[in-house]
């Protein structure tokens, strides 16, 4: 293959693009993220004129005009996107936003918090859908999503347990040395270990309760339990 043919082949790789639906939904999500409910910031007159004049004679001028239209109409869509429920056009943008947040979160604790936040979102959405009898499929999906978020939160929080174990090991060594000094109160648990273990167990129990409340349709109480769990994680 000659170099020319090779470059031609490489150029053909430009046909690999992101899915159009994803791109459009993600655009809405991004717009929602960057404007955060506020109106599109207005630049000073001179700044606007300066940028406008420099862009006016470019081939992209029309595309920019279209983009401006979408930005203006998008500002309205932002607040709606946060309240979107399954079936709404902006629901995909909301879910994408969640996935992106999870993707850029680095440590397990932050991810667990995000799982709890998303579980709360599912509770709110279920509350919005509960009166609608035509949404059984969406409700089922929400139930599964809620369960997944809770399970993921539990498993991520469990990954922090080795730290507690190592504390425990050290504390038992201390207890052993106490024993060597002929004290018989070796079995008295160290306060630090007890606190760590109880906290871990506490979150697990709270999440179990949240799951049960959600399954029985007590969504407001389930949301309260999730808030409680979130505070315990901190």
């Amino acid at each position, binding site marked *: 293959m000659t170099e020319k043919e090779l470059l031609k082949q490489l150029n053909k790789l430009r046909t*690999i693009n*992101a899915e159009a639906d994803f791109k459009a939904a993600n655009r809405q999500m991004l717009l929602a993220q960057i404007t955060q409910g506020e109106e599109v910031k207005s630049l000073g007159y001179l700044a606007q004129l300066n940028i406008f004049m420099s862009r006016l004679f470019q081939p992209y001028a029309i595309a920019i005009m279209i983009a401006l239209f979408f930005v203006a109409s998008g500002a309205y869509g932002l607040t709606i996107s946060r309240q979107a429920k399954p079936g709404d056009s902006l629901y995909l943008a909301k879910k994408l936003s969640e996935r992106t947040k999870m*993707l850029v979160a680095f440590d397990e604790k932050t991810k667990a918090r995000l799982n709890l936040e998303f579980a709360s979102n599912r509770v709110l959405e279920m509350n919005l859908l509960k009166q609608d009898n035509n949404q059984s499929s969406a409700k089922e999906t929400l139930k599964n999503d809620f369960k997944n978020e809770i399970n993921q939160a539990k498993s991520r929080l469990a990954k922090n347990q080795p730290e507690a174990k190592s504390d425990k090991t050290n504390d038992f060594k201390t207890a052993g040395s106490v024993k060597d000094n002929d004290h018989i109160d070796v079995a008295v648990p160290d306060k630090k270990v007890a606190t760590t273990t109880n906290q871990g167990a506490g979150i697990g129990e709270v999440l179990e309760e949240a799951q049960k409340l959600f399954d029985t349709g007590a969504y407001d109480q389930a949301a309260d339990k999730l808030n409680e769990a979130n505070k315990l994680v901190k």
Partner: protein
Amino acid sequence: MTAKPQTDKSSNKSDRNIFLSLKKYQDKEAFMQAYDLYFDQIFRFIFFKIGNREDAQDLASATFLRCWGYVQEGKLKSEQEYKSLRSFLYKIARNLTIDYYRQARPQASLEEAEEIAADFNPGLIEAETSIEVEFITAKLKELKSEYRNILVLKYVNDLTISEIAPILGKTKGNVRVTLYRALEALKNLTRDHDGEGITKTIK
């Protein structure tokens, strides 16, 4: 040495305006314009690193979010360092891809993460792509990640040498040398095939 790729001058001009609008005014409209211009390019760059469409889309999305974060914090780098906004976006994308692999292997060093990232699987490319695309993609896979990255940046996404240098943390001279070697390596891999023949044989 090599055929000069087509350069989209209007795109570069537009890029400068966007860069300045973001740096001086944190212009949200300009940012969305950048999204429209560059999302597919950034997606493609990540896709050729990780070989998974869904994750590549998510990472491309995260790239733009992180870029906006930098804009808000006034951390948009100077034009001298990053020749264009898209250079800056590519740099963020590259770092996020490395983070992505480090999540899977937290102990991995930067070099190891890049090597894991090199474990690209072209089999994940959907059937929608043509046989010719599959062929060249398979050949790209056989190259080391450094060569693959530079070929994608230059010949697929049309970046200039000046734009590629800060993304890969190399001098312009190094970029030219690496690019030459990468193209030679790809030529060697495709030596026994001719462009027309591939299509005829496989079809």
